[in-house]
């Protein structure tokens, strides 16, 4: 028995051993080889997969998120080009590599990703297979991996060494279209000969260079050749630029399938030949996926495909390439057939502009105009004279502009009579226009024909579903549509119709997901088909085409701008001060931007108005710090200052209006008042609007150069003093001291430089800066060493392109290794760094040098810009190249001069840049300090930020830096300065609790920087998980509170948890606006500001924090996220607008403020992040900013006098400021005192400065004064202003007088507010009231229908709203009571039983 058992045990043990040995043999000799690929392009993977003929080699794609699984494979191949992984993911791969995983990284652009553990003797062979590519090489590579790296012996064939392909830089696909071998050429001459030999040569035909690596240009080349062009396919332009080979082509256009920049050399080449650079896109995904994608393109791919090519001046980011799936599931890259045809036509139309005589070219010009008699508008521009100058320039250049009126005034009259637009309420006026305005009538068959050609069925159905059958209710009669347009020879002027539809005017300006109405579509189709435009021009900043639905970028045939622009070359005159929205026009409407100047800058000149205060401040300083300090006297003066500031309203602006007037201000409070007074005196304000084509007046040029140069020179002087160790601490805090010590001398320096009429030389620079020539030389040397590597990304991209060519050359063979080597060099091989003191000195000197040298350059650029703008526009209409330029107003970013250039944005992936991070940290600290001062040293629990695109671009992400720092995280930079990751700042280093944030993004920022929004979302989660022992974690607390509120609101706990960390919100349905402005100004349709807050939270409640949940609508999430908010922050980066002059500020910041108040029940602190002065970024309280702006602009006689020298646009700008004041009064009543309205009344109704305000308004723009008076009366009616009966009577009399004299204008306030009309009528004698009502009725004819519910953008609610009553007795109390009753009752029974003896 024992023997039997022993045998059995032995058998089992032997069997197990045998199985183990067999398994071991299998594992070591025959098991499948698992090959993982990280960051390889789908196409390459498909090719490798197709080449794999071994069942024992298995291929896997590893995503960065799966980095922890890297160790599961036998080898990991990494494509380092554009690889984005977090530190944690990198560490996971490194860990697997350290444990023996063979890893091969190629094309490494970030040295940190250069992980290589493949045996150094095997790596070159493996790289050779990869770099040469092709089926045979890929097959052998897999065999090589299995046999030599995985060391398998079974089913492991002997690999053949890599076959090296010779790839020439100039090539041509097989001309017979058979898909055979392509031809390669070593010279242009050889290529030309080959073209001749193959019948592809066309004498005098346009020559087009096709380059770039992101597409397969075979079909494109064939299509371009078939339409009469000679095509030069070139793999990499860089070597040919260097050798001059490219010059021998003398091309007419360059088409670049871009991934990164072509470089400054190419910009010079394009300028030299004056040819356009067109950059079609590859969506890098299945065409069907891309068509369904709301975003279109995002992140690093967006940067490389769209953003960086724009720096080269690339135009038309039109999707041409996409992936299609084969039957076997593999993807292939192809030109999308229907888009190829349109793209070819587009290219040919640009080329046609070069050939067609000016006299035959047809140009369609769209302009923007207020409703009714209101003026034409464009940011910073007086439109009618500008348009007139442009038309004259066209005529002078040979264009047919027959019928051009003899003067701008005549053109204005013509536009008012035949080129008007009307609010949907002005049915009477619209009807009269159709009778007498000679519109273009479009009938149904014509429209159907155009639509059939331009729009896919789906879009046609959408329009019909929304607007009914053609022609719809608006501007139509007898089944036809009336289009306002003015034909002047071969030029047609068209007002851009409203992009919203019918009664729903609130959604018009910045678009929605809804299709545009018929008249909008018809205007563009008429320009293309009816008029036959060769080019389309949008005149001034900005219209609505670029905000029509849907995708953000990389548009498809289902996106409206793509369809409406079609194949027509498109040019857009755009202000330099609004690059954020400008890039939307570039990317979404395929426009070549033509930048134009802002209005000139001038000093506020208000010092005289505040002389008494200035004198007292000066006496106070004397009393404290003078030769004989006298504290008692200082106190008396402080009391006098208090009296003065209260009287002038300054105390209210600064929050220093105390009840006890007998207590003097403290020294710190007097300092604040002093700084406020200095700010008023030194504030830069814009003068009358710019007229395109007309240089600023000499005085305006001088004042603008002062505005651009004085502070840089002053800060340069300060910087040098500081670098030299002089005592300058606290100087910047006291503006009066700073102005005395630095600004005043700087002004004198600028004056001297302006007077000399030539650039400053080194001797002058040394004299001004107080440095020696040797110090200057050393500073320049240090500054040069501090420069970032020159455009390393584009260099890398070029190298990647070069990698494909001439593999037989040394350059080709070793390129991959070379790229890695460059990366390594960047990490390690730098020279010895200069000391911090040297760096500081060099920076100060550099700043000073630039400031001094630029005085001359600025003046020159300002003088030349107007003609450059016209010249550039004409050149673009001739098919020429428009040079690229950054954006920003000239004071904030002088590099934007000269104008007449194509604006580009910043690479979002590199933000926040290091300097932006420094600014952001300083501003966040500043915010906390201000908050502490106001709130007994406590910190805010949550701060809400608004993100705008122009601010983001111009500050390179400083507000994002603020957000990070509030959360207590910091960016992690790679060696290229890109921010691909973030990390926690340790709590001890932060020294305070982490502060929660909420971010509302504008649609524009969302579209250009989605990856940064994702990073913020990640930062929030990271901060929430931080374990900070010493401090409370407000982020975690905030998330908990948000979750609680959400469940209370009726959201399920699962959804509430998911949504509780949502912190990035924006417009629903991909909207660009908030939909609030229209609602605020339609003030008869709401009774409480709470209604506005609700609409705001609804309209801005879409989540944009991650790709997965993109555009998810979660109204309660936004509302709940706003809980615990203690402060709101709005960026301000431009000198051309302020809180009062730009409506979007009250729209966004005011809307957010109101919503926070609605949610938390308290008014949050409101701050502006002021980036205008790059040397002195700071936070400013909203009320203070409004105080400064109102005192230096609409209440400043110098400013008003300057504006009265302008035209209709300047008058409209004043009216807009008054309307915005009303907006602020609604959104944040504390920000606007009655004093402001009283002042408006005195200045514009009583004309207290005797400037002839009424006469001027009546002459140039009576509609503006109608608007001003209507807004004032509405403020009284809504109870926002406690006006006296006399004031009301005065304003009503003036308003109705204007209406009687000029007819209603007819904006919403004037014509579409029945409650206001009743109120005005009630303030008038009966006869006048009747007359007034009659005038309004005539315009409206039919009564308008209310559409207050139209203010809520369409969106189904996530959950039905719950209403809950709170009872005073809690459920727990009820439960306890019942249990007590039971037990008591039971005990009673028991006792009773006992007593009964049962």
């Amino acid at each position: 028995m024992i023997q039997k058992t022993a045998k059995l045990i032995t058998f089992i043990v032997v069997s197990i051993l045998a199985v183990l040995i067999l398994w071991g043999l299998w594992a070591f000799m025959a098991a499948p080889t698992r090959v993982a690929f990280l960051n390889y392009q789908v196409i390459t993977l498909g090719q490798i997969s197709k080449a794999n003929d071994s069942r024992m080699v298995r291929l896997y794609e590893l995503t960065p998120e799966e980095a922890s699984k890297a160790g599961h494979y036998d080898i990991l191949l990494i494509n380092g080009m554009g690889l984005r992984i977090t530190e944690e993911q990198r560490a996971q791969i490194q860990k697997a590599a350290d444990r023996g995983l063979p890893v091969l990284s190629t094309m490494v652009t970030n040295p940190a990703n250069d992980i290589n553990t493949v045996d150094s003797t095997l790596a070159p062979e493996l790289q050779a297979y990869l770099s040469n590519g092709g089926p045979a090489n890929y097959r052998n590579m897999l065999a090589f991996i299995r046999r030599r790296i995985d060391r398998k012996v079974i089913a492991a064939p002997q690999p053949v060494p890599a076959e090296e392909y010779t790839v020439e830089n100039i090539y041509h696909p097989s001309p017979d279209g058979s898909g055979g071998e392509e031809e390669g050429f070593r010279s242009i001459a050889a290529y030309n000969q080959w073209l001749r030999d193959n019948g592809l040569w066309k004498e005098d035909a346009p020559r087009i260079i096709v380059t770039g690596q992101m597409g397969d240009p075979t079909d494109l080349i064939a299509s371009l050749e078939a339409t009469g062009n000679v095509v030069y396919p070139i793999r990499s332009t860089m070597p040919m630029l260097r050798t001059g080979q490219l010059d021998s082509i003398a091309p007419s256009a360059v088409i670049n399938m871009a991934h990164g920049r072509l470089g400054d050399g190419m910009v010079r080449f394009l300028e030299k030949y004056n040819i356009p650079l067109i950059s079609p896109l590859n969506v890098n995904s299945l065409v069907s996926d891309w068509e369904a994608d709301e975003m279109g393109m995002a992140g690093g791919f967006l940067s490389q495909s769209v953003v960086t090519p724009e720096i080269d001046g690339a135009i038309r980011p039109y999707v041409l390439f996409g992936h299609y799936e084969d039957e076997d599931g593999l993807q292939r890259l192809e030109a999308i057939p229907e888009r190829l045809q349109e793209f070819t036509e587009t290219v040919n139309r640009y080329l046609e502009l070069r050939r067609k005589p000016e006299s035959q070219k047809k140009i369609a010009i769209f302009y923007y105009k207020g409703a009714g008699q209101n003026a034409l508008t464009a940011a910073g521009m007086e439109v009618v004279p500008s348009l007139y100058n442009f038309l004259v320039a066209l005529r002078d250049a040979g264009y047919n502009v027959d019928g051009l009126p003899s003067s701008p005034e005549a053109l204005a009259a013509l536009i008012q009579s035949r080129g008007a637009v009307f609010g949907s309420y002005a049915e009477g006026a619209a009807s009269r226009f159709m009778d007498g305005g000679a519109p273009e009538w479009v009938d149904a068959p014509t429209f159907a024909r155009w639509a059939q050609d331009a729009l896919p069925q789906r879009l046609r159905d959408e329009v019909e579903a929304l607007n009914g059958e053609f022609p719809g209710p608006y501007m139509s009669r007898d089944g036809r549509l009336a289009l306002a347009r003015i034909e002047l020879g071969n030029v047609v002027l068209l007002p851009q119709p409203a992009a919203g539809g019918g009664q729903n005017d609130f959604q018009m300006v910045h678009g929605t997901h809804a299709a545009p109405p018929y008249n909008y579509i018809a205007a563009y189709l008429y320009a293309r088909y009816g008029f036959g435009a060769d080019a389309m021009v949008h005149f001034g900043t900005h219209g609505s085409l670029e905000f029509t639905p849907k995708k953000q970028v990389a548009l498809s045939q289902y996106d409206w701008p793509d369809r409406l622009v079609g194949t027509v070359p498109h040019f857009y005159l755009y202000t330099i001060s609004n690059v954020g929205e400008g890039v939307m026009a570039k990317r979404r409407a395929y426009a070549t931007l033509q930048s134009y100047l802002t209005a000139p800058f001038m000093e506020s000149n208000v010092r005289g108005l505040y002389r008494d205060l200035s004198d007292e401040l000066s006496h106070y300083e004397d009393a404290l710090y003078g030769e004989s300090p006298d504290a008692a006297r200082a106190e008396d003066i402080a009391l006098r200052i208090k009296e003065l500031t209260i009287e002038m309203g300054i105390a209210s602006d600064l929050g220093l209006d105390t009840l006890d007037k007998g207590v003097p201000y403290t020294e710190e409070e007097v300092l604040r008042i002093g700084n406020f007074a200095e700010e008023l005196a030194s504030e830069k304000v814009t003068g009358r609007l710019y007229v395109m084509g007309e240089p600023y007046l000499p005085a305006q040029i001088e004042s603008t150069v002062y505005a651009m140069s004085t502070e840089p020179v002053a800060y340069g002087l300060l910087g040098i003093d500081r670098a030299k160790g002089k005592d300058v601490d606290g100087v910047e805090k006291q503006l009066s001291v700073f102005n005395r010590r630095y600004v005043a001398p700087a002004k004198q320096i600028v004056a001297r430089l302006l007077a000399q009429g030539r650039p400053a030389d080194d001797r002058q620079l040394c004299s001004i800066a107080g440095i020696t020539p040797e110090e200057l030389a050393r500073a320049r040397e240090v500054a040069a060493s501090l420069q970032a590597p020159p455009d390393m990304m584009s260099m890398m991209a070029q190298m990647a392109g070069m990698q494909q060519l001439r593999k037989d050359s040394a350059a080709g063979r070793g390129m991959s290794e070379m790229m890695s080597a460059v990366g390594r060099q960047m990490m390690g091989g730098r020279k010895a760094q200069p000391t911090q003191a040297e760096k500081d000195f060099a920076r100060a000197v550099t700043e000073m040098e630039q400031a001094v040298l630029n005085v001359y350059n600025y003046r020159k650029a300002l003088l030349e810009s107007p003609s450059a703008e016209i010249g550039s526009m004409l050149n673009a209409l001739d098919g020429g190249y428009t040079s690229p330029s950054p954006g920003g107003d000239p004071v904030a970013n002088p590099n934007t001069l000269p104008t007449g250039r194509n604006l580009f944005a910043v690479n979002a992936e590199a933000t926040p840049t290091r300097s932006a991070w420094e600014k952001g940290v300083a501003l966040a600290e500043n915010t906390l300090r201000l908050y502490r001062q106001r709130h007994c040293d406590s910190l805010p629990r949550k701060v809400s930020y608004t993100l705008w695109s122009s601010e983001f671009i111009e500050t390179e992400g400083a507000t994002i830096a603020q957000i990070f720092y509030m959360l207590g995280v910091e960016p992690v930079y790679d060696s290229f300065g890109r921010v691909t990751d973030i990390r926690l700042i340790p709590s001890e280093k932060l020294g305070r609790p982490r502060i929660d944030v909420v971010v509302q993004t504008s649609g524009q920022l969302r579209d250009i920087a989605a990856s940064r929004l994702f990073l913020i979302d990640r930062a929030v989660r990271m901060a929430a998980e931080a374990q900070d022992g010493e401090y409370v974690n407000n982020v975690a607390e905030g998330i908990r509170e948000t979750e609680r509120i959400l469940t209370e609101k009726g959201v399920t706990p699962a959804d509430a948890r998911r949504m509780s960390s949502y912190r990035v919100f924006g417009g629903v349905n991909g909207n660009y606006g908030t939909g609030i402005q229209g609602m605020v100004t339609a003030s008869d349709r709401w009774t409480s500001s709470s209604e506005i807050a609700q609409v705001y939270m609804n309209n801005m409640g879409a989540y944009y924090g991650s790709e997965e949940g993109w555009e998810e609508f979660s109204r309660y999430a936004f509302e709940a996220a706003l809980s615990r908010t203690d402060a709101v922050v709005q960026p301000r980066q431009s000198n051309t607008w302020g809180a009062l002059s730009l409506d979007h500020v009250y729209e966004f910041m005011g809307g957010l403020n109101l919503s926070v108040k609605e949610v938390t029940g308290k008014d949050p602190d409101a701050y502006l992040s002021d980036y205008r002065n790059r040397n002195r970024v700071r936070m400013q309280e909203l009320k203070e900013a409004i105080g400064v702006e109102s005192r230096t602009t609409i209440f400043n006689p110098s400013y008003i006098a300057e504006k009265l020298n302008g035209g209709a646009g300047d008058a409209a700008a004043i009216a807009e400021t008054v309307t915005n004041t009303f907006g602020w009064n609604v959104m944040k009543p504390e920000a606007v005192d009655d004093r402001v309205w009283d002042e408006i009344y005195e200045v514009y109704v009583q004309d207290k400065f005797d400037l002839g305000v009424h006469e001027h308004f009546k002459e140039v723009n009576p509609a503006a004064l109608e608007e001003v008076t209507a807004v004032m009366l509405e403020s009284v009616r809504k109870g926002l202003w406690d006006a006296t009966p006399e004031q009301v009577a005065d304003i009503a009399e003036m308003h109705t007088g204007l209406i009687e004299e000029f007819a209603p204008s007819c904006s919403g306030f004037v014509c579409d507010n029945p409650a206001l009309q009743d109120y005005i009528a009630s303030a008038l004698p009966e006869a006048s009231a009747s007359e007034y009502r009659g005038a309004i009725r005539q315009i409206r004819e039919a009564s308008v229908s209310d559409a207050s519910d139209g203010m809520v953008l369409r969106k189904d609610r996530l959950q039905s709203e719950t209403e809950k009553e709170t009872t005073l007795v809690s459920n727990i109390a009820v439960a306890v009571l019942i249990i007590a009753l039971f037990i008591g009752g039971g005990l009673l029974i028991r006792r009773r039983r006992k007593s009964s003896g049962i």
Partner: protein
Amino acid sequence: MYSLVVILMVLVCFNFVLKQSWHKWWSVLAHAASAALFTGLMWPVAVRQSRSQIEAWLANPDLMLDTSVVITLEVILQISFCLLSVHLLSSGKLKSSTVWGYRILRWFPGVLIFGVLFSFLVYLIFAFPGVSFPLVAWSAAAVVFVVIAGGAWLMRWIFPDKESRLEMFFLTNALTGIVAVIATVNGQTAVAGVSEVDWRALAGVLGLIAAGVLAGSFVRTARPFRRFLKTNNNLKK
């Protein structure tokens, strides 16, 4: 309305725990474990419930009528258990089907408890935002286990005699039935609710209840079980 539902839930819990007092210890533990497991495992479903959904259910008369049927059925079964128990105590030899019927009814713990446990879990999840859902659920499960096991023991300790428990069980089930009827007709009345407690009225009601309890405890005929048992005892003697 919500308070009525809470009363109903408390009654269901009380009935459940009270009924456990007839079970052997291992049976109590098994029931407690089942209830705890149910509580612990239901969190993925619980987190998908929303307050507004629950409110909607409570305001849905059709659903409440269905619920009323379930409650009534359970009350009938539990009252049947009481009657059979009495029958068993008072009769001599019974038919085996009656005994089996008694056994089944004694074993039957009730289904309403699961609804109550689920509501309890949902309430807890609402009450602890930010805390891990499984943690809340399994903590609740532990509490449920302890309360059921401990509650059964406590009931036996407080009311050692089966008769008292039986009588109380009968009464609470009857009360459950009544409350269920009141709760489920809610929504069909047109009386506006009040958001504040009329303390004087409440005191009056409580006074009336106390008076009734006192009166009841002195009027023997008001207690059918007692009279029946006493008669039965006398017969045995």
